[in-house]
C-alpha cells in the first residue's frame, strides 16, 4: 500500500513537471496520446472488464468529436455546453449500439459493432451536416476560468485532470460491486445470472460506460485539434486502439492506459518507418494474444508466480467447515410439513425433436433435502435448468415459494431466494475465490447505478459490508487460506466447496446442487454431507442431483427418480430402492441399460452451454 502510494505520488509529480521538459511538438504528441488513453479506458471497461467485444469504440470517439464540432460551429454553442451535450449524446448512441449485445455475444457482437463503426465513417463522409470528406474546421478553442486552452501546455493540464478523474472513476467501478458483477458476467454469464447479476442490464451499462469515455475523448480531441474529419475515426484507428488495449492488457485499466500511451508514443517515434511499424504492431498483437493473453499488465503477475513456484509459500490448508447456527424447528420445517417451497407441475422440455423432459411433476417441502437421481441423460440437469430459469419449459409450470417462476430470468429467481451449483463447476475463473463469493453476496441492482456518480460513499460502505460478510462466509467454509487464489489453481474438491459457498452467499431459501460429490474423494464426500446437513439445519431447502448413492440414501428424506425425462418413482430412500421400475432403469439387466443410454443420452455439454 505504501509502495503504491509512493508510485502514485511520483507519477503525479512527474506528470506535473513533464511539460517543462517538452517542446511544442512533444507536448502535442503527449496531448494526443492522453486522448487515446481515455478512449482505451472505455475500451478496457467494455471489453476487458465486461467481456463485450466492442469494435465501435472509435465511432463513440467520432460521435463525441463530431457532436462538439457541429454544436460549436453550426449551432454556435459555447464549447463547454457542447461538450456536456456531446458526452450525453454519445452515451445515448452507446446504448443503441449496445442493444445487439442483448441478443448476441463474442465474434457475432464484434462483427455487428464493426459494421456500425464502418457505417459511422460512411455517414461522416457523406453527410452535409458533418462536412463530408473535408470534415469540420474552425472549432473554437475552449477557455476555462479565463485560461486560453489553445495553449497546448495548458490543455495538457486540463486533459491530465480529466484523465486522472476518468481513470480513478474507472478503477473505482472495477473494484466496486458493479465492476465485480461485470467481471463475473465476462467470466461466465450463465453463472453470473444464477447468482443474481442482471446480465442484460450489465451489458447495456458496459456499453454506456464505454461510450461516455469515447465521448469524453472525442470532446477533448475536438478541443485539441479543433478539426474533425472521417479519417480520424477509421477502422485502421479502431485496430490501433484494439492493439493498445490488447498489448497493454485488457483486463487492467492501468494496462490499457500504458498500452495507449506507449503505442501512441512509439507510433510517433517510428513515423518514418510506419509501413514496417504497422507490420510490427500486428506481429506484437498476435504474439501478445498467444504468449501473454493479459498483455503487459499480466507480466508482473507471471513473474511473481514464476518466482513463487521456485520458493513455495507455506501450503494453504482447506479449513474445517463451521456449521451454521441451526434455526428453530418451526422455521426449518421438514418432511412432515405441508407448505411447498417448490411445486413443479407437468413440466415438459423439448429441444427440437428431442424430448428431454415429459410431464414432470413433484413438490418439495420447505426444509427438506430432496434427492433427484436417474441414469445419465434422464433429464436431471435439464430439470434444474428449467427450475432455475435458464430454460423456459415447453409446457407446464414451476411455482417457487408460492409464486409462478416459469419464464422468470435467473437473476430474478436468485433475488427471490434460489441458488444453484453446476455439474461442471462454473466459477468466475479470472477472479479470486474471495471475489467469487462477493459476487454471490452482491444483491445490489442496476437501478442504483446512479450512486456511483452521485453517492460513491454509499457504494464504498456497501462494499465494505460485503467484504465483512464475505470474510465471515470464507471462514465458515474453511476457505480463508484460499481467498486471494485463482479458482483454477485449487484442487477440484476445494473448487466444489467454493461454488457451494458462492451459492450460499446469497442466503437462499432453496439450494440446487448438481452432482456436488462428482470427483470428490471419500473424506471430501463425508465433509460434503456434513455441509449439506448443516445448510438444511439453518433453514434452507436443498435439492441434490447425485450419482453417489451412499450419500443420497443417507442424506435425503425423499428421492425423486427420473428416467427418460419422466418421473418413475418418488418416496423415501427405502421405498424408492424397492420400486421395480427403479431397479430396472437403474440397476436392471444389461440389455435395458444399453438401450437406455444409446437412445436418450443428452451430451451434458450441449445442455449446459445453451444460452437461456
Amino acid at each position, binding site marked *: *500500500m505504501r509502495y*503504491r*502510494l509512493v508510485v*502514485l*505520488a511520483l*507519477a*503525479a*509529480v512527474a*506528470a*506535473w513537471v513533464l*511539460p517543462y*521538459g*517538452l*517542446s*511544442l*511538438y*512533444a507536448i*502535442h504528441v503527449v496531448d*494526443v496520446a492522453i486522448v487515446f488513453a481515455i478512449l482505451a479506458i472505455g475500451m478496457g471497461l467494455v471489453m476487458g472488464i465486461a467481456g463485450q467485444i466492442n469494435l465501435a469504440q472509435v465511432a463513440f470517439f467520432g460521435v463525441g468529436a463530431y457532436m462538439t464540432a457541429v454544436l460549436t460551429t453550426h449551432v454556435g454553442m459555447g464549447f463547454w455546453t457542447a461538450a456536456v451535450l456531446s458526452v450525453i449524446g454519445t452515451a445515448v448512441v452507446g446504448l443503441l449500439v449496445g442493444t445487439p449485445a442483448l441478443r448476441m455475444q463474442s465474434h457475432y457482437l464484434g462483427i455487428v459493432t464493426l459494421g456500425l463503426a464502418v457505417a459511422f465513417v*460512411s455517414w461522416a*463522409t457523406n453527410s452535409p451536416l458533418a*462536412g463530408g*470528406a*473535408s*470534415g469540420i*474546421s474552425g472549432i473554437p478553442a475552449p477557455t476555462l476560468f479565463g*485560461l486560453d486552452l489553445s*495553449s*497546448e*501546455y*495548458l490543455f495538457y*493540464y*486540463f486533459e*491530465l*485532470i480529466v484523465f*486522472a478523474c476518468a481513470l*480513478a472513476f474507472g478503477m*473505482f467501478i472495477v*473494484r466496486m460491486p458493479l465492476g465485480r458483477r461485470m*467481471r463475473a458476467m465476462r467470466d461466465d454469464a450463465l453463472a453470473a445470472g444464477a447468482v443474481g447479476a442482471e446480465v442484460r442490464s450489465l451489458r447495456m451499462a458496459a456499453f454506456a460506460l464505454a461510450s461516455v469515455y469515447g465521448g469524453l475523448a472525442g470532446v477533448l*480531441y475536438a478541443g485539441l*485539434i479543433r*478539426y474533425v*474529419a*472521417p*479519417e*480520424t475515426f*477509421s477502422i*485502421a484507428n479502431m485496430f490501433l486502439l484494439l492493439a493498445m488495449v490488447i498489448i497493454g492488457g485488457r*483486463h487492467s*485499466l*492501468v494496462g490499457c492506459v500504458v498500452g495507449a500511451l506507449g503505442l501512441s508514443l512509439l507510433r510517433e517515434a517510428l*513515423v*518514418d518507418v510506419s*509501413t514496417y511499424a*504497422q507490420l510490427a504492431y500486428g506481429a506484437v498483437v498476435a504474439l501478445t494474444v498467444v504468449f501473454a493473453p493479459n498483455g503487459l499488465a499480466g507480466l508482473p503477475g507471471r513473474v511473481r508466480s514464476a518466482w513463487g513456484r521456485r520458493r513455495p509459500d507455506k501450503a494453504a490448508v482447506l479449513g474445517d467447515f463451521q456449521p451454521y447456527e441451526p434455526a428453530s424447528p418451526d422455521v426449518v420445517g421438514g418432511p412432515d410439513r405441508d407448505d411447498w417451497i417448490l411445486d413443479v407441475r407437468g413440466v415438459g422440455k423439448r429441444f427440437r425433436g428431442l424430448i428431454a423432459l415429459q410431464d414432470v411433476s413433484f413438490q418439495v417441502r420447505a426444509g427438506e433435502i430432496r434427492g433427484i437421481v436417474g441414469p445419465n441423460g434422464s433429464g436431471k440437469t435439464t430439470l434444474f435448468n428449467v427450475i432455475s430459469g435458464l430454460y423456459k419449459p415447453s409446457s407446464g409450470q414451476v411455482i417457487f415459494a408460492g409464486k409462478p417462476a416459469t419464464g422468470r430470468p435467473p437473476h430474478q429467481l436468485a433475488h427471490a431466494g434460489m441458488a444453484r451449483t453446476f455439474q461442471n463447476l462454473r466459477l468466475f475463473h479470472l477472479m*479470486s475465490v474471495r*471475489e467469487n463469493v462477493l459476487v454471490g453476496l452482491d444483491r445490489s441492482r442496476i437501478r442504483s447505478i446512479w450512486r456511483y456518480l452521485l453517492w460513491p460513499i454509499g457504494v464504498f460502505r456497501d*462494499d*465494505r459490508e460485503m467484504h465483512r460478510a464475505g470474510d465471515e462466509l470464507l471462514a465458515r467454509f474453511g476457505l480463508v487460506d484460499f481467498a486471494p487464489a485463482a479458482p483454477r489453481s485449487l484442487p477440484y474438491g476445494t473448487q466444489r466447496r467454493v461454488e457451494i459457498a458462492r451459492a450460499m452467499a446469497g442466503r437462499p431459501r432453496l439450494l440446487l446442487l448438481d452432482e456436488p460429490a462428482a470427483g470428490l474423494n471419500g473424506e471430501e464426500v463425508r465433509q460434503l454431507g456434513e455441509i449439506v446437513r448443516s445448510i438444511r439445519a439453518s433453514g434452507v431447502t436443498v435439492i441434490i442431483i447425485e450419482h453417489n448413492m451412499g450419500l443420497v440414501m443417507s442424506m435425503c428424506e425423499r428421492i425423486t427418480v427420473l428416467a427418460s425425462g419422466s418421473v418413475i418413482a418418488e418416496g423415501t430412500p427405502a421405498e424408492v430402492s424397492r420400486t421395480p421400475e427403479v431397479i430396472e432403469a437403474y440397476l436392471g439387466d444389461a440389455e435395458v441399460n444399453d438401450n437406455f443410454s444409446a437412445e436418450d443420452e443428452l451430451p451434458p455439454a450441449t445442455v449446459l452451454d445453451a444460452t437461456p
Partner: protein
Amino acid sequence: MHSLRNPRRSAAVGVAAVLTLLFGACSAPGASEKAADTPADAAAVSGSDQAGSASPGSTDPIKIAVVDAQSGQLSSLGAWESKGAKLAVDEWNKAGGVNGRQIQLDVFDDQGDPTVGTNIAKKIASEGYIAMIGTSESAVTLAMAPVLAEEKIPNITSGQSPALAELKTSFLFLNGPTSVTYDESLAKHIVDEKGIKKIAMISNNGGYGKGEHDAFLAALSARGVTPVADQVVTMEQKDFSAALTKIREANPDLIFIGSEEVEAGLIVKQARDLGITVPFAGAAPQGTPVYIDTAGAKNVEGTIVSSPYLSNETSDASKKFAEAYKAAYNETAELHGAKAYDGTNIFLTAMKTSNGATGKALADAVRATKYNGLLGDFAFDESGVGIFATSIGVIKDGKLVAAS
C-alpha cells in the same frame, strides 16, 4: 488490477493526486516554456523566430518538409508526390541551390491520418523547416493548416477540396485547381459545347467520389440540367450491375464517373458487358493508364477527361519533365508527380526572388510568383489557388489526347 485494497485509502490517494495536479497547474509552463532551457525548446524557439526574419548571410541548407501518405491506402499517391518534389529539388541543387544555399528535403509520413498530420505540423515547426510540400489528402491538409498558419510556415498542397480554398489562410497554397474547376470545365465542355443533356452519374461514397459528385452536380444544376440517374456505390464494391442496370434503363447519352482509377475501370468494363455503349466522362483518374488497363482500351474509347495534365506529350516542358522523371526513377511520370514538381518549383522560385525569406515574407513572395508550369500558368489569388482551368482530353486508341 483485481486485487482488492482498502477502498477508502485508495480514494484518499486519488484525491491527493488530483489536488497535486491542480496546484501544479497554477504555474503555467507554457509561458516559461518559450524561455527555452532544453535543446528541444531552443529548436522550437529558433524555428518560430526564423519565421518572418530572413537570414541572407547563412549558408546552412534550407529545410523543406514533404508530408504525404507513405503508408496506407493512399501511399501510391504519396510516392508520386514525393518523387515529383525531389526531382525539382535535385535540379535546383545541381544548379547551385537557392542563392548558394543547398536545399534539404525530408519526407514525413502522415499515414493519411489527420491526427498524425497535426503531430507532423508541430514537428516540422519545432525542427526549423521553413516550408512544406503537402499531401493530396485534403482532410490531413485541413487539420494541419491552422498549426502551420500559427507557426507561419508556407505550404503548398496537392489537395483539391474546395474547403482548402475556403480556409483563406495566407500560408496555404494549392498546386492545382480545385475539384470545382475540374467539374466546371467538364460540364462546360459536355453541356455547353457538345450539347449533351441526358447525363447519368455514378460515384462512390468515399471522400473523393463524394466531392466529385457534389461538384459535378452543382455544375450541371447551374446549367439547368438534372441527371437522368444518380447512382452511388461504395468504395469496396466490386459488382455494379444493380446501379448500372438502373442507368441503362434511364438511357443516357453520357455517364459521369466520380471514382478512383481501379473502381472506375471496373464500372466501365461491367457497363460494356451490360450493353451500355455511350461514352463516359470524369476527372483526372479517368485519364490514367491504370483506368485504361483495368477497363480495357476498347471499352474506354471516347472517355472525356478533365485534367490539368493530360499527358507527358502535351508540351516541351512536360516532355522534358517526363524524361527527367524516367531517368531518375525508371517510371513513367503522371499528374501527381507533375503537381508536386510544379509546387516545389514555385516555392523555390519564391525563395530565390525574396532572397531566402521565410514566414510571412515567403508566403507573400509565393503569392507574387507568376510561374509557367506543367499544369499551366500559375497566378495565386488570396485563397491560395493558382490555377483556374483544366484541359479537356479524350481517350483515343487507348491514349489520352487533347479534345479537338
